[in-house]
């Protein structure tokens, strides 16, 4: 994925230039398929109730070499990233993201990027969002005892003195 934006300023010596963004998309439902660092979650979603709270993502080094990690981009005014400095080969570590108590905006869509020290200098970006709606919690309805409607009494047929057909004696 390659995107760019053309920027025009009042700098006569440089009237127009481009800011470029590069990335490689992967299936968000399969964060564990990444290499050399697999993730337990592809993204982090906060709610307004999570201010000051932490969320974790487990990162697993699926390579055969120890990996050192560093944070190359983030949004420190919105959240803090506690990144393990290294992950041993075949091992897992937890990455913590803490939502700030005071936020510049009530909702945001940000991200942070980590870089590994493998030969390719692989990078990984994890989106962090805060939605402004709290899941509705509908209180359970109180149990209502339903009373059976009054049944109309039906006159039962009188079977004690069954009428016998003509010509027959008694009942067989």
């Amino acid at each position, binding site marked *: 994925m390659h995107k*760019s934006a*053309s*920027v*025009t300023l009042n700098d006569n*010596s440089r009237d127009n230039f481009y800011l470029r963004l590069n990335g*490689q998309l992967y299936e*968000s439902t399969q964060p564990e398929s990444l290499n050399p660092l697999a993730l337990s979650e592809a993204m982090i979603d906060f709610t307004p109730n999570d201010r000051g709270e932490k969320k974790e993502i487990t990162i697993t080094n699926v390579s055969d070499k120890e990996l050192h990690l560093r944070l190359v981009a983030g949004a420190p005014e919105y959240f803090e990233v506690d990144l393990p400095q290294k992950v041993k080969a075949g091992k897992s570590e937890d990455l913590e993201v803490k939502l700030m108590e005071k936020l510049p905006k009530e909702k945001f869509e940000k991200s942070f990027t980590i*870089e590994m020290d493998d030969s390719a200098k692989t990078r990984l970006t994890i989106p962090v969002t805060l939605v402004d709606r709290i899941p509705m919690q509908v209180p359970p309805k109180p149990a209502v005892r339903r009373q059976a409607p009054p049944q109309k009494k039906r006159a039962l047929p009188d079977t004690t003195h069954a009428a016998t057909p003509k010509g027959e004696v008694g009942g067989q």
Partner: protein
Amino acid sequence: MRRFISPRLLIISVFASLTLLVAIAVGQQKNQVRDTKSSKADAVSGAKVLVPEEAFDFGYIPNNSRVAHIYKLLSVGSDSLRILRVKPG
């Protein structure tokens, strides 16, 4: 007593002097306007930008997600830096 300068000549010389003074004054005013304009032009061109980072690599990104990156533009000139237009592509 003899007059060395006739009244008519005196009046003409005074008028010429006044005319010369007015011409000099107007000329100086024009120079001032020209200097002001040139200084304004210098101020516009005095804006200068420094872009420490022009490209960013996100690496792996989950699809159907939104990611963000902040680019910093530093104003290092003598005039205010203004962003005139941003056109995403």
